[in-house]
């Protein structure tokens, strides 16, 4: 049982993770190192420790993952995909280094992936998913070139994925899932279209994700998991219904998922920690106004000061 956030240990865990490159687990994750870097670095920034990483080295590695098409790969040598393009842009935003990007090239890569019906493919192979709609919209908004896509059609497609329970799925007719709901609500928030959400219906579905122990699950009758602290909470915040859950109980659940000895946060108490859940745990605590954690933006998934710096200044 933990009663507080062991922030120093989490910072050390993140900085160490980089050095354990040769374990099987990290080789399996090799192809999504860009996501891993975003999770780790954002966590560090939320804990005010971004200064402890070699910024120039990371930035040049990020740029080495850029493909000639403009998109970014999950790691050097891999193929480009929007999943990693967003992480790359987010990392550069954290370091206030967006100016080194060829914005025209990156935004063209994303804009070309929009389909006739408004949806987005993840890469040239045509997998369609509302996750990619969110990524495209989030990324282009950070780069201030949403005008490169048809926003109206993009929004129309997202709304066509709305279900009768108020949630959203990855394609029209697909079941609601908290991760997918975050993507759709986030994209609607960024484009100023939250009035297309049935806030009370979705809010009830989302607040019923809180289970007895205080944790949140991602779909009805599933186990709670720290990563849903982010997806459910950020969605509830964006639609202004976060007061419908018991925040204190959720804080306790997240704290209980910490590895108090070696740092890091896991999906459920006493499971193995990883960088993904460490990020979602800390970001969740930020949304819960936990002291000592910087506020995070619920739609862009970056610290509020980073997003305000980019979007509120001309």
């Amino acid at each position, binding site marked *: 049982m933990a009663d507080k956030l062991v922030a120093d240990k989490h910072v050390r865990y993140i900085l160490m993770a980089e050095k354990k490159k040769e374990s099987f687990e990290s080789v399996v994750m090799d192809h999504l190192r860009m996501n891993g870097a975003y999770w780790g670095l954002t966590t560090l920034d939320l804990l005010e420790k971004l200064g402890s990483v070699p910024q120039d080295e990371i930035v040049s590695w990020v740029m080495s993952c850029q493909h000639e098409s403009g998109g970014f790969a999950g790691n050097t040598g891999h193929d480009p995909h929007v999943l990693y393009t967003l992480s790359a842009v987010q990392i550069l935003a954290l370091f206030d280094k967006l100016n080194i990007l060829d914005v025209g090239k990156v935004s063209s890569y994303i804009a070309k992936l929009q389909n006739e019906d408004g949806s987005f493919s993840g890469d040239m192979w045509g997998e369609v998913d509302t996750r990619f709609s969110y990524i495209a919209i989030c990324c282009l908004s950070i780069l201030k070139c949403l005008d490169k896509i048809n926003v109206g059609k993009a929004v129309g497609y997202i709304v066509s994925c709305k279900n009768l329970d108020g949630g959203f799925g990855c*394609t029209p007719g697909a079941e609601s899932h908290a991760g997918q709901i975050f993507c759709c609500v986030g994209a609607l928030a960024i484009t100023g279209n939250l009035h297309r959400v049935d806030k009370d219906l979705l809010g009830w579905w989302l607040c019923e994700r809180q289970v007895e122990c205080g944790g949140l699950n991602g779909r009805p009758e599933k186990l709670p998991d720290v990563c849903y602290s982010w997806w459910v909470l950020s969605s509830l915040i964006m639609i202004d219904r976060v007061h419908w859950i018991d925040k204190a109980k959720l804080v306790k659940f997240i704290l209980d998922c910490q590895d108090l000895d070696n740092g890091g946060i896991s999906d459920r108490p006493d499971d193995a920690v990883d960088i993904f859940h460490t990020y979602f745990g800390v970001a969740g605590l930020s949304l819960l106004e936990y002291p000592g954690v910087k506020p995070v933006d619920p739609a862009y998934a970056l610290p509020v000061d980073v997003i305000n710096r980019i979007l509120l200044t001309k």
Partner: protein
Amino acid sequence: MHGRPRKASEPGEDADSAAKAVKLRSLQSQFMSNHHGKIYTKVAIELSTELLKINPEAYTAWNYRKLAVEDNLSRIESDPDLVKSILDEELSVVESALMQNFKSYGAWHHRKWVLSKGHSSIGNELKLLDKFQKKDSRNFHAWNYRRFVVELTNRSKQDELQYTEDMICKNFSNYSAWHNRSVLVSSLLANRADGFMPNEKIPEELDFVHNAIFTEPGDQSGWFYHLWLLDQTVDVETPLLASSWPSHGCSIILSGPGCLNDSSSKFTTFCSESGSFPLIIYFDQAVGGVSSSTVTIDSELKGNEDLVWEPVSGKNSQVSCGWVTRMKYFSSEPIVRKEYKVKVRVGNSPGIISSRGGCNFSAPCEFFFTAHVHDAAVKDSEESIVSWTDEFDIWDAQSEDLNSFVSLGRLNAEMDLNWRQEALAKEVELFRQLSDSKIGKLTLARLLMASEAMASDDTVKGAHYEEILQLYNDLMALDSSHYQYYKDMHSVAFLHKVTSSTESLSRYLFRYRNMNNLVCLRLNNLSLSRIASVEKLLFVQMLDLSHNELHSTEGLEAMQLLTCLNLSHNRIRSFSALDSLRHVKQLRVLDVSHNHIGKHSVDTTRYLCSSPLSNSEWTQDEVGRQKPSLVTKYWDAYFVLRDMSLKQLDVAGNVIAGDEFNSFVLQVMPKLVWLDGQKLRT
């Protein structure tokens, strides 16, 4: 990483893991060199097979295989056997990858991609899926793939509906199956398929879902399906006009800015410097297509030929329950007192369309009112302070005039009410038996609210509110984790009760003597956490919501007549929570003192307001150019306040208030006269 126990590694395990890592690393680097060298030989392809068996998430390897397939297909011309064997090989690689990792997006997509190449063995796909769905009946990848195959093979919706029924009968705790059922049933209902008329099918489905809910009330699988059916029972697809301001048959007085001398009039007096007044129509559901051709106006008031209608929440939203247009009543020549009849016809030509089912507003309806236009004002009251303590006259509850303000909801006579009322009555009776459980109480409260909305007999109207309020009180105690949800619903029910009759409403109505006898509604000190029933309050000009638990003004944008608003002692956390007030063009007096503005690091209305964060268009003004850092710091106050024309503002008692903030406010709102009770100019 999910569901892996945290433990110290056993001896030998590290070495084991390291050896596996070395093997995988070497496979990966060989694969990369094949990929970059565009080598698609048999050996090279097999290497990628091996890699994907160990790591189905290696997305670049799936991409490589697609390139290899295309390369190989281009060499063999069109030998159907060869094509089939190449594609079969891909399907089997996918299958073994899925055995290893059920949730691999890359593997599922690869399968779809292979099928899109024209593979003939689509018939096998449903069999394969049955195998997967037996193992994990909630896997959403499998369900998505199922919908994809069903569409590709043109399998009938009825057959798929039977499949969901089989799955549910095996185990009703399968939300995925209930979800798919809702998709199928709603599509069959919308197409009026054989046996899917709402009046027959919805009661049938209600019976079907009862089994699940009554067997295990704590299991959520059936909850949302039941709520959807309830909505289908209550919601009518064709939109109805719920209310308007001015309301049917009423008289209003229109004048220039300032005060009229004879303010004893029982009519609503509306003063404006712009010489126009808002005409508001409110529908029972969000609609689009309100325009000067779908709503026609017949009056002698000049200059109102091509009126522009806008949603009350601003022109960015395409659909809305409330719509407003501004009618001119002053032309260049001075007018001596005159009376005008105004006739409004809603649904004159087709085009008002529901956002719900795309249905047309079908029954055109008409209302009229009388406008008395007065000469410009006599007494100037612009600079005086509005007080929330004195100068209120109690409403004469006996007076007839209230009826002319309040237009209570009307039900469409054409609507098929019978089966709906019957179904509701049956549900109420049934759920009373479940009223010791959370879902039983909540459903009962919702059913009773629906019964109120559906009641066609005036004598039974309002009979259920006490019970509903009690149910929500019980729920707050029973399920404290969701306390605020029930609290909000309690507020909604309470406001429905208040507005359910002119008699109950009149208890909260006053006249503000100091300013043209403004119609004032005082809903202070009621522990309200939520605003509701605004469509019945369109006539209110002064609203006291002080000493409640509100954290947002969402909904107030419909009250276009509001001139004075008191929100002091509530739980407003930021100026963005007041965004809806930007659309209330008449608002001059706002009290948000003693709230929580500036106290919290998380702003829950950050994206519900119009700002660069939600990519709304904005132009920089003088303040933005001169004080960029203050604009970033107080961005919500900046974007919300600069669109308001307030004369009087109270912000004291908030964390944000202070010299720096107050002087920023003065720059953003140069026309402000009173700030925190202090007169700014003489």
